[in-house]
């Protein structure tokens, strides 16, 4: 009875956090320009996959553009060659990402974390070549695939209308966040963390490290592919540029910016990064210079990220508020 009650109050307290975030996001969606918000929301989904890999497995991947591209191109292939329904396209993209992760995963998750980071980057570069040069007859090479006007409107939320797409993106981002939050509370989530901290011990108590990592890898990169599929639908266009290895560090940077392993990290990081990119590109035009040294700076002083370095007092207050809210609801 008490166990059930504490479970309920725990559920309520984190539901409360998500509801608050959702509210704030919705407010932004009304107040801020729609294109900006759309990019932020998709970007947040993209980053949450990377955040899961780093925060829960301790695996840093510089190959996220590869999984993004897989999702985007699968969706694009469907919408360009086969059908017109963007929702089906989204499903195809996610399925493609899932399949890709299942094929690639077993090779990669056996590797030591440093090799893992490098091999993923190599994968991103190779996929970039594939889309740009190797399969030109299918991918259209640098010209990409354009299908914006081929998509049909969808009922309820029309994905072909940016303003309505935004609400769809917010719903998807919330669902993804809830899923990751849910995973944290399961045995699987605990095993992920344990495998990050001490893999020998985990093996010792009878959990298979390989399987845990593989499943986590598949989940993370299917989410990444989902983000790719959403980019494809939102822009109605894909090109090799989307999976360019020169953007390989973006999800890692944003994960660090938002705070590794924190639930709201990807969203906050995506906000900060997209906002900065817009402002800085307009002001000085030399984005690489800024983002590169920002990254070095983060690594040297504040490796907890924006969220993680919030003054402890503020965080304690938040925790207190959430608890109070949780109690009030019981």
């Amino acid at each position, binding site marked *: 009875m008490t166990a059930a009650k504490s479970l309920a109050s725990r559920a309520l307290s984190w539901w409360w956090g998500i509801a608050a975030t959702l509210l704030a996001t919705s407010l932004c969606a009304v107040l801020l320009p729609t294109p900006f918000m759309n990019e932020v929301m998709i970007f947040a989904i993209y980053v949450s996959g990377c955040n899961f890999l780093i925060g829960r497995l301790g695996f*840093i991947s510089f190959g996220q553009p590869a999984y993004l591209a897989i999702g985007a191109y699968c969706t694009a292939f469907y919408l360009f060659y086969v059908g017109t329904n963007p929702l089906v396209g989204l499903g195809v993209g996610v399925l493609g990402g899932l399949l890709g992760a299942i094929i690639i995963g077993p090779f990669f998750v056996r590797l*030591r974390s440093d090799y893992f980071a490098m091999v993923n980057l190599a994968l991103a570069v190779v996929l970039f070549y594939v889309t740009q040069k190797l399969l030109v007859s299918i991918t259209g090479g640098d010209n990409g695939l354009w299908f914006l006007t081929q998509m049909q409107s969808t009922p309820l939320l029309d994905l072909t209308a940016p303003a309505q797409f935004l609400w769809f993106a917010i719903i998807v981002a919330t669902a993804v966040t809830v899923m990751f939050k849910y995973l944290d509370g399961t045995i699987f989530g605990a095993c992920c963390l344990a495998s990050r901290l001490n893999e020998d011990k985990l093996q010792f108590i009878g959990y298979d490290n390989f399987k845990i990592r593989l499943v986590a890898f598949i989940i993370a990169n299917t989410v990444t592919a989902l983000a790719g599929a959403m980019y494809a639908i939102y822009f109605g266009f894909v090109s090799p540029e989307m999976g360019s290895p*020169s953007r390989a560090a973006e999800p890692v940077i944003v994960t660090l910016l938002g705070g590794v392993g924190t639930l709201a990290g990807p969203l906050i990081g995506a906000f900060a990064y997209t906002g900065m990119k817009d402002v800085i590109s307009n002001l000085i035009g030399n984005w690489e210079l800024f983002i*590169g040294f920002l*990254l070095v700076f*983060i*690594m*040297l002083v504040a490796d907890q990220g924006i969220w993680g370095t919030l003054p402890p007092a503020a965080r304690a207050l938040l925790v207190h508020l959430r608890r109070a809210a949780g109690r009030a609801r019981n």
Partner: protein
Amino acid sequence: MSLDPRLVMSSVIFGLSIGGIYFLLAIGLSLCFGLMRIISLDQLLYYSIGAFVTYSVGVATGQFWLGVAAGAAAGGLASLAVERLIFRRIYARDPTFSMITSFGLLFGGIGIIKFVWGVVPRPVEVPTLAQFDVLGTQIPVYRLIIVGIAVVVYALIWAFLHRTIVGKAIRAAIENVEHVEGLGINVGRLFTLTFVIAGALSGLAGGVYAPLILVDPMMGLEMLAFVFMVVIIGGLGSIKGTAISALIIGQVVSLGSLIYAPAAQMAPFVIMLAILLIRPTGLFGVALTRR
């Protein structure tokens, strides 16, 4: 499909020269990992710096080789500054940590290069257009010079690590850094020296490769995946492994283009996957001792 033997011959030489460049770049990455346990992507920044300095000095003085020397020196100096200011503070942390930091450095450095030299690709003139006759095939002498430089560098690095006391100390520290520290040897100085050697070799690679490509700010990123694959296939921390794998990848890329050009870029990746499947630490990878 029949292949013209003369084409194959020139392809092999082409592969050797490009393998030489891979080697010059990968050896620094590999040594830095073996000794300091860092993944130093910023080596590719020193590569770009080397190429740009070679271009600028070449334009100013008309002396290509002077430019290459200046490029190598610039690579060494830049790496010295980075080691002192940044890497020193992160040696104790996880290798992936250094990878993120060095990616930031690479990016920030590209920004600086754009600021100084602009984004327009620059051509560098080949110092000698002479051709060399090998079994009826005309081979550009300059390609052979690159191969020669790579071989000389390999020999020098080998002699340094096996014949000098400082080199022996570096190998000892790769074996077990704590034992070397405990003897009252200044390990920090060995780290700096290794990092600067790596930076200078990267600068040298950029300089000698400049005439065969267009020098542009993104050239480091284009090289990144290949250098990675060379290091991974050879095994982090192994000099012999790096050399062998650079040789293999060079040939795969150049002979591969004879058969089906677009696939040549893919082949090294497939080879890398296959090798990792058999040996997760590469051909000659060192077992990682935790610190």
